[in-house]
């Protein structure tokens, strides 16, 4: 039986701040024992696998690097209804993915959780580099406490 809540950390730790979701979920895993109803998943860049990860859950929380026209390091909590994707997909390859479209598809299939919450974190740099920039690294505790607060409610 799947746990009712899933927390997905998305991104690629080889691409500097793009990996923020993965770093955050690694940190969250340290507190996993206190949240028996929550599954924490390093979902990497698995793309459409998200469809399957959120299926049969009551709530999904997704953490991802996001261009939101905010200063680097800014975290924003939002629901899918509050945003529009600006991504243009070429539909050339499975290697492209747009989280907002995946969520829309899950809803259309009737497989989406009742509640989906996203935490977008504005990157400073997205380029080939292991590890986050100091700007995001310095604010990880803030991100963690915000997400744990979300899980505690």
């Amino acid at each position, binding site marked *: 039986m799947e746990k009712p809540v899933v927390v997905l950390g*998305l*991104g*690629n*730790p*080889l*691409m500097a701040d*793009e990996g923020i979701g993965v770093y955050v979920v690694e940190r969250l895993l340290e507190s996993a024992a206190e949240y028996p109803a929550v599954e924490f*998943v*390093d*979902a*990497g*860049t*698995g*793309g*459409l*696998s998200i*469809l*399957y*990860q959120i*299926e049969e859950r009551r709530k999904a929380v997704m953490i*991802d*690097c*996001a*261009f*939101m*026209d905010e200063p680097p390091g800014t975290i924003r909590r*939002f629901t899918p*209804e*509050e*945003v*529009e*994707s*600006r*991504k*243009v*997909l*070429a*539909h*050339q*390859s*499975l*290697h*492209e*993915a*747009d*989280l*907002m*479209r995946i969520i*829309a*598809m899950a809803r*259309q*299939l009737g*497989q989406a959780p009742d509640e989906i919450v*996203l935490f*977008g974190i504005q*990157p400073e740099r*997205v380029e*080939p580099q*292991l590890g986050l920039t100091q700007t995001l690294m310095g604010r990880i505790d803030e991100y963690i406490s915000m997400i744990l607060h979300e899980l505690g409610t």
Partner: protein
Amino acid sequence: MSNRTVNINVHHVTRIEGHGNIVVNVTNGKIEKLQWQVPEAPRFFEAMVRGRSYEDIQTIVSRICGICSISHSLAATKAVENATGIQVSEQVDTIRLLMHYSEQLQSHVLHVGYLVAPDLFGLPSVVPLVAAAPGPVKTIIGLHRLANEWSALLAGRITHPVTLRPGGMTKIPTEKQLRELQDRLKKCLPDLKAVAEVVLSVAGNIPKFDRPTEYVALKEANSSRYAFYHGEIASTDQKDTVAINDWKTVANEYVSDQSTSKWAKWHRASYAVGALARFNINADLLSPTAKAVAQMFALKKGCCNPYFNSVAQIVEAVHVVETSIEMIDKLLTKGLKQETVAVSPKPGKASGAVEAPRGILFHEYEFDRKGNCMSADLCIPTTQNHANIQKDIEKLVPEILDEPEDKIRLKLEMLVRAYDPCVSCSTHMLDVKFVR
């Protein structure tokens, strides 16, 4: 040929992710430019493994791609083991192959279901397909789920495996888990056949186009196995196979003016890798049901219609499931053993190759005495297919120039989709504007 003027520029500008661009310029029936332009390739990851321990390589490279992370990890593990002289047990080899098969199913099902099927049904993307054909889409999702859980059981998680290590595995499944997996694989064969039937019902929409080319894939000498993980490099253009360590004499990578990604060629101006290449080299070794599915589509060895790559993927999806059912039987008959491997670093340079879902994948590493990586060289299937896509476009466009521009564009896009190039897999970030 008519005196038409056609200008197609399938050019996608996004902030970070790279896409291939298709450029067609025809003026008064005269072809001025036909180009497959590829703006980036994930070569920069090679620098990231330099200085890292031989034990960490497979974990780092697993992040190169979210679709073929198992293939990258396996190619790296094989290369590390070759370079440092590590042998693995038959049990480890079998479990890794099972893991590799799970990725083939995962990727093929997604490619056919989400990327190719919308074209065949005449829809712009998978989103409207959900409304038009909810049943088949749910079947695809069910198969995807099974493939994901299969990967998770053996790789430790769905993407970016964590159970591989030089010399062995950090965790192996239990006999009970393998038996449960086997049950599910048996039950999914009818679903796969149903997917094949649905695709067959719209197979008339697969463009008719042939272009003989060279096909390159792994092949095992004196084996009854359809090669995905073992063997040497084989070509439809030569009889003898080539050792994996000599892959650079096959890929012959070069720089093309129209691309920042490297291109590849061997006996001809281009060669193709992927499911159709594997089929053209190893079709006689497919499982019985996979052969029957190939027959349904009249797919035969020697097929040179690149659009049929997707049909070959369906055939291979059946093959990996049917073969895995047998492999699990063999594992269970022998009984699983907990194995420990003592591995010590050794200096050396060597390569590893596997068939990633999109084609043969090469990794090469050199290690110093402490087992730290001194250099790396990775050659992905997409790099090897670029020149072939270009040559396909050069032959295809003159043949379809009398068709409406939107049809020309669609056929070109479908051609690229058939190869499923990996040009933007390393980043998937959100790009959103707030509307409320």
